[in-house]
């Protein structure tokens, strides 16, 4: 009696094909089981007992079953269970829950094998989804513009929101500046980290709300670390700053004009995760595991702030003294399409987009 073992990477169609071939070769084909993503198929040539097909099949099935179970016990348990996920992040405090989830094994407990990669630049990320990354960070204007340009991405999980009680972004002026509020900014020079990104969009919106023409100010792009010097030298009149840079500027004695994001709404969507639409539709389970992991990470952070700060220091590489003072962002991991509608209106009002987009198409629908 000949016994053949066929190993094949698990693919249902392929295995059925294989079963056909084995039949044609005269093997009695049974036992298709997958262990470690490989199909183990045991075939017997020549019957073991008189009734070729049925009995030999069931006996062979038993043997195959034993073989497969044995194989499963010898293989590392986790390898069969974890789904590999690739995510990008920006080394800013907003993305701390993902780092905590990775460091504390929360992702693994939820069945995800996550690889985190650092990047500095939001705008190139929509292009990498589906190729290099499954999850990437994004902000409302970024997503809206990408979708309108025909890029097939969708928001899948929330991250940070900006609220009145916990502002993380400030519009800052020098302590001796004559500017007291947004209405004094007419004709001034404002430093922004990225033109067209969420902070600057909200500043323009705030200006318009205060009756200033957004075109009357001159905006220049300044990376956050250069802002203190530029402000001190007087090259710029106001800077848009994020934690920890905002904290440093304020500690040096400069004044805050307030949080520009709150001009959009008292509780406004700030950062979230996006994925390729097709991938998102096919992988609801992964997305739900992702959201669950982030929620658990947040609970860990609330219970163990010191350890969370240590992880923060590790991923942002900021100096210890700075890390201790950074306030945590307000996190909310579920998404509501209405939060996006707000931003669509803001962008349209500023003339940055010409068409509207249905806010429901921007968020993935999880059952």
């Amino acid at each position, binding site marked *: 009696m000949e016994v053949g073992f066929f190993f094949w990477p698990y693919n249902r169609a392929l295995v059925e094909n294989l079963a056909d071939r084995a039949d044609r070769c005269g093997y009695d084909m049974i036992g298709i089981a997958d262990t470690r993503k490989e199909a183990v198929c045991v075939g017997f040539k020549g019957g073991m007992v008189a009734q070729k097909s049925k009995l030999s099949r069931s006996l062979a099935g038993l043997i195959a079953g034993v073989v497969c179970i044995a194989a499963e016990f010898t293989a590392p348990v986790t390898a069969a269970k974890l789904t590999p996920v690739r995510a990008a992040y920006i080394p800013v405090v907003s993305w701390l829950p993902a780092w905590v989830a990775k460091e504390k094994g929360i992702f693994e407990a939820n069945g995800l094998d996550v690889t985190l990669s650092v990047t500095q630049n939001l*705008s190139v990320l*929509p*292009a990498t989804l589906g190729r290099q990354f499954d999850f990437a960070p994004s902000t409302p204007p970024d997503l809206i*513009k*990408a979708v*309108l*340009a*025909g*890029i097939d991405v969708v928001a899948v999980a929330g991250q940070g929101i900006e609220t009145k009680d916990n502002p993380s972004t400030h519009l800052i002026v020098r302590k001796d500046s004559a500017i007291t509020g947004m209405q004094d900014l007419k004709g001034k*020079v404002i430093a922004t980290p*990225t*033109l*067209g*990104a969420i902070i600057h969009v909200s500043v323009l919106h705030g200006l318009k709300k205060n009756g200033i023409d957004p075109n009357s100010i001159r*905006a*220049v*792009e*300044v*990376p956050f670390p*250069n802002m203190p*010097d*530029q402000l001190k*030298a007087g*090259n*710029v009149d106001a800077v848009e700053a994020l934690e920890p840079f905002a904290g440093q500027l304020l500690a040096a004695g400069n004044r805050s004009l307030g949080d520009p994001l709150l001009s959009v709404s008292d509780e406004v969507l700030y950062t979230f995760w996006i994925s390729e639409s097709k991938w998102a539709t096919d992988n609801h389970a992964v997305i739900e595991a992702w959201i669950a992991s982030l929620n658990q990470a947040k609970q860990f952070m609330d219970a163990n702030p010191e350890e969370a700060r240590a992880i923060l220091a590790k991923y942002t590489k900021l100096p210890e003294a700075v890390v201790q003072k950074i306030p945590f962002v307000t996190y909310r991991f579920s998404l509501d399409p209405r939060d996006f509608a707000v931003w669509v209106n803001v962008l349209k009002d500023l003339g*940055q987009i010409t068409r509207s987009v249905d806010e429901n198409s921007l968020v993935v629908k999880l059952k």
Partner: protein
Amino acid sequence: MRYTRAWQQYLKLSVAALPPARGLLPLVVLLGAWQLLQSGKSPYFPPPSDWWNGLMLLSKSGRLYPALSATTITLLLGLVLAAAVGTGVGLFIGVFPRLSRAIGPLLEFLRAIPPPAIIPVAILFLGYDERMKLTVVVLAAIWPILLNTSSAAERVHPLLLDVARSFRLSAVDRMRLIILPSVVPAILLGIRVALPVTIVVTLLVEILTSIEGIGALMIGAQRNFQSSQVYGLLVLIGLFGLLVNNIFAVFEAILLRRWPPKIQSENF
């Protein structure tokens, strides 16, 4: 002997100096192939017909022409300054090789530092205006001119230097009558190489700081995911570079029309 007016001669020289238009054939073929292969809409690789629409959109919004003029002004000023400083320093280095050993490492050091690293320091001292842009552009564009000039100044034929000594020419006269004329073709070659460098660095500064110019438009379009605008602007830049180069080629042809032929020192 037929009498031809000077401007007719210049015109003939100019036409001879320009690269023939059929040289654009490879690119036209490439664009045509792209257009045929990619007729549908694509967010990242739109067909050339979309590029035209993108550009028209930009020009209608009134942002194209101010940006174009800002870039052109920076370019011209930067080129003139780079040529002046590059030639001066290059001659200095070539004529006094011992001095070149002294400042050599410092210059090499500055040459290697990439513009994106220079920009924050330049901004510190100069702020966010045209001066900063010019400084970075000149610092980057000097090198081809400087290197070509110093290389040629080193290689002035010893016979010519002997002539200078025979006539007991003063240092100034030697520079003016012997060294400079030998070196001018190399200077022009250096400027030729520096032309696209100037354009590239101007655009780079604009891309990285979003100071007014074509580069700022490009990065803005890229952030808004409007790749057709980006490609359209790239084509514009390419044609602009061709135009600038042609103007320079004409200038070079007219300047060098009576130049003595080059003598290489190594082979004699």
